[in-house]
């Protein structure tokens, strides 16, 4: 409870505090890269806004 414990990098089973030992540093991460996810997020938002814009343009009186 000192708040300074070394951060774990792998997931233990749900419901357990203790996880397996961390993988070697060279192991590729299962987590997607921030920049790539950010680009996807922006694309999805633009697509959603485009759809909403089209809905408004077509039907709003």
């Amino acid at each position, binding site marked *: *409870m000192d*708040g*300074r*414990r070394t*951060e*774990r*990098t*792998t*997931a*233990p*089973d*749900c*419901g*357990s*505090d*203790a*996880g397996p030992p961390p993988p070697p540093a060279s192991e590729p*991460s*299962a*987590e*997607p*890269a*921030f920049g790539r*996810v*950010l680009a*996807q*997020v*922006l694309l*999805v*938002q633009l697509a*959603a*806004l485009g759809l*909403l*814009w089209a*809905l*408004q343009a*077509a*039907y*709003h*009186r």
Partner: protein
Amino acid sequence: MDPLNWIVVAAYLAYVVVDGLRRSKGTHRIEGYFLAGRSLPWWAVGLSVMATQLSAITLIGTTGQGATDGLRFVQFYFGLPLAMALLGVTLVPLLRGAKVYTAYEYLERRFGPSTRALTAFLFLVSRGLAAGTIISAPGVVFSAVFGWPLAWSVALVGAPTVLYTMAGGIQAVTWTDVKQMFLIVAALVAVVAVLFVQMPVSPGDAFQIAGATGRLQVFDFSFSFSEKYTFWSGLFGGTVLMMSYFGADQSQVQRYLAARSVRAAKTSLLMSAYWKIPLQACVLLLGVLIFVFYQFQRPPLLFNPAHERAVVEARADEYEALQSRFDEAFALRETAARQAADAPNETAAARALDAFQAREAAAQEIRGEALALAQEVTGERPEDVNYIVPRFVLGNLPVGFAGLFVAAILAAAMSSVSSELNSLSTATVVDFYRRWFRPEAGDAHYLAVSKVATACWGLFACGVAVYAASLGSLIEVVNRFGSFFYGSILGVFLLAMIPGTREVGAVAGLVAGMTAVGLVSLFAPEVEFLWHNVIGAGVVVAVGTAASGAAAVRARADGSAQRQGRGS
């Protein structure tokens, strides 16, 4: 409600409690209880954040808002993706790198104990009461719809949530959130599918009718401080509000502190940004479709059944007269809607939609009279908008689907409350109990205290929920009070990222920010609340930087005076 629907609800409750309790196995250390050993995968954290945000108020109130006001509310979320991206490169790495349990713990390291204590206290007060209102909203609706005492409805939401949150900590909260999120989305999709099947007109005609009443207007580019939802208030005010919520509120921060890595924490935030606007648009669109559905099937004059019963008992003749006028207006409106849907060409459709608009205005006028009558009889604000979806679900969905939607409302409430309780317990134990009373105890002791704190906050939230109806004005005051400091707390975190700023600047800035928002609220009430967050954060950064600069100058002057004193 049909027994089969109740079986669906009971099955959900039993599953969620058993699943939550199962997570308590192995949670023996405080880091596991509060942060899941910093081991959660990004997708689970992201879904959990989304489930927390999607409360029962969203399923009941936002859908109702879609039915009465249309899609414009979605503008409120336009700042969310930007806020998440900014947090991903600023506060998330900062807080993760500090290896803290709470966001406020970081403020002590950066500034000092006063800043931590003040911000953590503001969090406890606002979130403790907010947890009560989150339970209260579905509780009041369930009581009115099913005719139960309010305490039963509150217990239905509160008891299982407290049980699994207390036992399993953040593991239980996160993994039940994931499943609750799937249930909520499944229920929304099911209702939209049923609506399309039951709608007597084509989707294109349904949109024509909704568009004729202004309900498909999404974008409002007017720049006005007095308009609640515009593109600009959503983009600027919304960004600051979302940054405050996700960057400075422990109920959200704790989730990404529990992620297994910095990258997982950032990705989880982006994931919730990914779906927020499309999901919120779908929720509002569901309300719009229910509005169109009720153009062809006679809706109740008052959606709140408790108010309907009270008015029928107290002023039967008046209500009957209103009902018969409403029936006539509905028949005329339905005819106009069908003519608009069946129009052979665009000119005829435009003429029919004009006629429909006039009939719709006449029907709404009668509904307005009924709402005023209900307020007069009950002495309560009608809040009829919150009963549109429950009445639709219970009256029109096939057997099993209604139970699924009621279970989804419970899931939405429970997923939000569980996160609040877990974070309230964390801040109570870490920022106050361990910090000021028992700094040297072992994990077992802190774990026991954390469980007791969760139970106490759960009881407090249920108590607030039961009395929320009678405390109506007080809750409103608390919510306004909350909006005073939300932006200001974010301002303190922004200040922490500016080199050279000091605790005196943080405390002075926080007080100045809250005072500025209070003054704006008092003397310029036309300024809508989304702008309060921008004002609060801006004032904290400006005053905090100036006060820190002044303190640095004074410290340098004192230092050189002392050196001169020693030299002479």
